[in-house]
């Protein structure tokens, strides 16, 4: 059996239903491909072949019994920040390197019930803190388009695995862009749903008011299928929204003629098209906007006066919440504990000094500082006030447009190590993505071109709360008219050491 290439979920589901191959064959093929390519990509922290094959056999049985559902037999992987009872949940940290959760995250549970095949857990920035997937205790993830480059982060492992066609879809979490930015830098699709659409139960908290799980896939259509399975009210998460189930794929059927986006108003914030954006990125976005107009959409200029403050606001709120959320990693009950210590304080100090990496410590320090007595008003409270101003800007903007478009990140992928010593430079990579987390609104990234070095570029589409179906429709229409999403990295060239596709 030759190593297989993971197709889109839609294609694979069709092939499985047509019995062109069995799910066990598919899964074994992908496991072989992972075995070949993962050493170079480091996309996975845990690969569980036995478990994947067991899921695959169950899927084949479902097909045989005639009760397969849209995602039955689809091989996926979870970002290793989503708890799973089947395999360890590390959060990319030494602190939890051997931590076994007794329960599944709600979204993981829903995807399991939907019949997916869980191949493994993907690598990530430690505790989701980063934009490059370099801060993992398990080593950096590499970009399948060029392994000298980062895949983006923090959900870089899932993004790289989908981009490298190791899996059909994956999960990520997005606190300030951690799904969209790696989707852009890895040349795939990623969606951050409206805050509260996907339960946070079992998502190890980084910044609770910003964290939201979402899907990665090759196409917008696939994202809709995954989101259909992942969304839904969960009484175990008090911020989970209790609203009627929605079919996120409902607008995707039919062709709607040559101008399917007729009537759709796309807002272009002047703040997203200014200085600091790579020329190739600007050109690709410009071309994509032209395509959207050709599909019938109109573009309108809008202003988001306070969005320039999104980064400073985010880097107050997110670390503040993180400093509190990460307090439970104290060595008392589970996880890493220093092997020797003199007293309680010394145990805390050594355990946390050893268990956390530099970026996590930096954010705990910042977060502790901004919440401290005497600084709370100037930092945390002020940041929350500005957060409301930013939300107001977006609310006003959506009176004149349906979707806001722009680049997902100011540049394509950067070299591993290029920004590792400059946290502020690294933080600026999130400049276009953090606003959606601050407002709670949905946003996604889809491939829209390549830069001069052949690295992918992402187009970000943002919408008002609960506008997922509209965003997916716009993305889907764009993908029916373009082929950026069909481009896959030729890994043999980029890695130099790997055999070409399907030669084994």
């Amino acid at each position: 059996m030759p190593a297989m290439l993971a197709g889109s979920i839609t294609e694979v589901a069709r092939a499985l239903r047509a019995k062109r191959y069995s799910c066990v064959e598919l899964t074994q093929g992908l496991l072989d491909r992972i075995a070949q390519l993962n050493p170079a990509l480091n996309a996975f922290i845990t690969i569980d072949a036995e478990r994947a094959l067991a899921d695959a056999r169950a899927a084949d049985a479902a097909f045989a019994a005639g009760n397969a559902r849209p995602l039955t037999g689809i091989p996926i992987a979870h970002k290793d920040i989503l708890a799973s009872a089947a395999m360890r949940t590390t959060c990319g940290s030494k602190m939890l390197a051997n931590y076994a959760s007794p329960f599944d995250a709600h979204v993981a549970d829903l995807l399991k019930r939907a019949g997916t095949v869980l191949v493994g857990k993907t690598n990530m920035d430690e505790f989701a803190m980063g934009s490059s997937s370099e801060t993992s205790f398990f080593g950096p993830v590499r970009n399948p388009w060029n392994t000298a480059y980062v895949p983006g982060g923090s959900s870089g492992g899932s993004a790289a695995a989908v981009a490298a066609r190791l899996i059909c879809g994956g999960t990520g979490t997005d606190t300030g862009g951690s799904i969209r930015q790696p989707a852009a830098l890895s040349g795939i699709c990623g969606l951050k749903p409206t805050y509260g659409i996907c339960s946070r139960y079992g998502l190890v908290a980084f910044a609770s008011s910003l964290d939201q799980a979402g899907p990665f896939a090759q196409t917008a259509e696939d994202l809709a299928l995954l989101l259909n399975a992942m969304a839904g009210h969960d009484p175990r998460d008090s911020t989970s929204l209790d609203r009627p189930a929605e079919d996120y794929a409902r607008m995707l059927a039919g062709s709607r003629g040559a101008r399917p986006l007729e009537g759709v108003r796309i807002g272009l914030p002047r703040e997203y098209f200014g200085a600091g954006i790579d020329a190739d990125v600007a050109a690709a976005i410009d071309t994509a906007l032209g395509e959207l107009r050709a599909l019938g959409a109109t573009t309108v200029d809008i202003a988001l006066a306070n969005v320039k403050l999104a980064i400073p606001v985010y880097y107050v709120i997110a670390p503040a919440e993180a400093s509190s959320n990460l307090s439970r990693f104290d060595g008392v009950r589970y996880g890493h504990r220093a092997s020797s210590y003199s007293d309680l304080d010394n145990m805390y100090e050594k355990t946390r000094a050893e268990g956390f990496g530099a970026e996590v410590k930096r954010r705990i320090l910042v977060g502790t500082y901004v919440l401290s007595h005497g600084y709370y008003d100037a930092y945390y409270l002020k940041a929350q006030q500005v957060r409301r101003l930013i939300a107001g800007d977006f609310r006003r903007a959506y009176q004149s447009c349906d979707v806001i478009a722009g680049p997902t990140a100011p540049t394509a992928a950067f070299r591993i190590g290029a920004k590792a010593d400059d946290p502020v430079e690294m933080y600026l990579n999130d400049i276009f993505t953090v606003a959606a987390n601050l407002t709670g609104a949905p946003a996604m990234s889809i491939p829209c071109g390549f830069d001069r070095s052949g690295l992918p570029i992402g187009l970000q589409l943002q919408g008002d709360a609960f506008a997922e179906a509209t965003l997916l429709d716009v993305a889907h229409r764009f993908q029916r008219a373009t082929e950026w999403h069909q481009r896959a990295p030729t890994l043999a060239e980029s890695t130099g050491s790997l055999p070409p596709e399907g030669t084994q």
Partner: protein
Amino acid sequence: MKWEVVIGLETHAQLSTASKIFSGAPTAFGAAPNTQACAFDIALPGVLPVLNRGAVERAIRFGLAVGATINRKSVFARKNYFYPDLPKGYQISQYEIPIVQGGALTIATASGEKTVRLTRAHLEEDAGKSLHEGLHGMTGIDLNRAGTPLLEIVSEPDMRSAAEAVAYAKALHALVKWIGICDGNMQEGSFRCDANVSVRRSGESKLGTRCEIKNLNSFRFLEQAIEFEVRRQVELIEDGGSVVQETRLFDPDRHETRSMRSKEDAHDYRYFPDPDLPPLVLDAAWIERVAAELPELPEAMKTRFEREYALTAYDARVLTSSRELAAYFETVAATLAGSAKLAANWIMGELTAALHKASLDIADSPISAGQLAGLLKRIDDGTISGKIAKEVFDAMWEGAGGGAGHAAGGRTPTTATLSADAIIEERGLKQISDEGALERIVDEVLAANQGVVAEYRSGKEKAFNSLIGKAMQATRGKANPAQVNAILKKKLGA
């Protein structure tokens, strides 16, 4: 130099919910360590809090009972600090906007009734426990208690003595039990107080520097701790020193407080709104429903008792010190139309003393309200004297206790709930009110005690009482004392 003492209390009342405030784990006391701690209670990665509405409802009930404002919107915050028995590294509590604000409690003091104002009451979770015994120098952590719902009730600094602080704590303890939000079990830690104590020279308007004494879990410790602390602070100032703001612990063995941590060592708790819990928004209908279900409150009932039963304020307060006692009284009083004072005297006297001696609660009284009412009825209608009634009372008490009926020489009671009438009948305790019979008895007494009669006639008034006593003795206490008195007077020509 005269000193004024200023005391405010912070009381933690454990709310009587079956499960914890943010998880589904049970709250029952005394289970083996860590058997009542679920994934949330031990703060596993990925768990989230879900608010227990039962705890919220109890907080509303309390707020309504003390006439406080129920905030329609309150906010849960995180209080961050590291301690091994605090699994999340923060305690979920209410900080800036508590669920209950204001309110007041009336207490009885030596100089009459007094109103103590409440600052606020807020919901929070309890921490776990650190265990040291039998662990060979190591520390164990028991998280059964972690997440137990607490209502922290904060008073204004309105109390002026340890006795007032105790009166407040007792009134609060009675109230939380009355409205059914807390079992009040102080041994199990269901009700514990922190006391903020300061002193100032009389007439001074500025408050002195306060010390907080933590975790006082009995009224006696509360009183002793405050008294010690007041002495300590006064001596300190009188010796030219000054009080340092700090947290102190009370040592019940040595009856003293000692420093736990100073203000400088105080934690910076870095409070901020808990992003895992949306603001708690209460709809008016819920508050109204809780209000409608609220029982008659002790203050209202006390006023009614004074009016309806013509009781003194003191009697009415004692009888409304618990819901069970008040209900007991009302049941007895209902059968004794017009003689509520008799019911009050017996319940507060004989019954309370017997219960106290046996360490029993009114709810577990061996003598039911119906039984006592039956007994008092016979005093009221003259069937038996008060003295005989005490004998019947004892027989009832023992009968209920399981059959020690031999003391009075009678037959062993056959049932555990003997009526007064049955005991009176069985033991022949019925009062002798037959005029002729009593006259014969008095004649016999006079004949047999001529010396005493002579003493009386020579002007010794006391001798008269001795003769009444002899007549009562002769009838084993059954003679109607008023009649004996009248007959004796008549015979002696007094």
